[in-house]
């Protein structure tokens, strides 16, 4: 077979939404913009499988304790530990730090029963904020997103407009949304469309 490597496109440094320009749609009612969102480009993401005995090492290295309950996350600065399952967590860290973090976790966790996988490029993280953020998400998600039922510090894996997402409530009007990289253009366009009536600003 012919060597195709010379004709292979170079995707290095690109993210799921790097081809997309910033754009804005004003609030038709003339008020404040309802949704301001953008990609958290190159956010480091590590999938951690293991039991609670990893908590101590994870705390030392990331500064985050393990989430106290299911569907919660813990934060320390830019780093988050998100509950994904009874023995599964997602570690979020600053862009470019994931390799270093993975290496130190691999080195320092004493138990042999764990697995860390770098999923930084497999998943795409979007930062969402604005007064209408919950109203926009509620259009495509079956979860009860009322601030009393889905308060800051809570997370959930669910479906948003039929695509699998992880939602993290950072504040009453701010979320981190994590979806598959291949679904990111769809999710971005869906969010923009759903936010038309409130006005949106997408920051590339």
């Amino acid at each position, binding site marked *: 077979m012919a060597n195709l490597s010379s004709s292979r496109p170079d995707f290095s440094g690109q993210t799921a939404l790097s081809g997309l320009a910033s754009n804005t749609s004003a609030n038709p009612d003339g008020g404040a913009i309802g949704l301001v969102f953008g990609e958290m480009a190159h956010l480091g993401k590590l999938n951690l499988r293991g039991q609670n005995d990893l908590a101590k090492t994870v705390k030392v290295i990331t500064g985050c304790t393990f989430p106290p309950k*299911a*569907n919660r996350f813990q934060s320390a600065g830019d780093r988050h530990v998100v509950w*994904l*399952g*009874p023995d*599964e967590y997602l570690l979020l860290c600053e862009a470019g730090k994931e390799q270093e973090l993975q290496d130190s976790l691999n080195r320092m966790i004493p138990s042999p029963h764990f697995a860390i996988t770098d999923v930084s490029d497999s998943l795409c993280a979007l930062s969402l904020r604005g007064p209408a953020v919950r109203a926009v998400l509620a259009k495509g998600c*079956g*979860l009860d997103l009322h601030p009393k039922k889905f308060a800051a510090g809570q997370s*959930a*894996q*669910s*479906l948003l407009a039929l695509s*699998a997402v992880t939602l993290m409530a950072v504040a009453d009007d701010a979320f981190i949304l994590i979806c598959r990289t291949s679904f990111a253009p769809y999710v971005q366009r869906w969010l923009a469309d759903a936010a038309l009536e409130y006005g949106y600003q997408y920051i590339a």
Partner: protein
Amino acid sequence: MLIITCPFCGPRDEVEFACGGEAHVARPLADNKISDADFADYLFMRDNPKGLFLERWRHSAGCRRWFNVARDTVSNEIVEIYLMGSLPVKTAAKTTYKTSWRRDTAAEKAATPSRSKAGGSK
């Protein structure tokens, strides 16, 4: 639409889940030789009752974990949700488990180590 209570995530919409069919179908051990006809009970035969049914479900859009559900196939009432590897404790679900035709099959009996082996004579 059903609201199913995932044992880990709590109540969620049915669309987040996938049904994995009949629960408590144990695979016969390779050491316990059984006939092809008996093995077919394990491999092919699945119950399709009108009434209470013990099923496996997976929270596929959530925590992606398997669990068991005792569901009435007529009314869709969920009688009990219990973890993988455990048996139901509610009376109705317990009765369904105990009275299933599968409990008497050679395939199910062959799924546990035979008594002579468990005795440990080398």
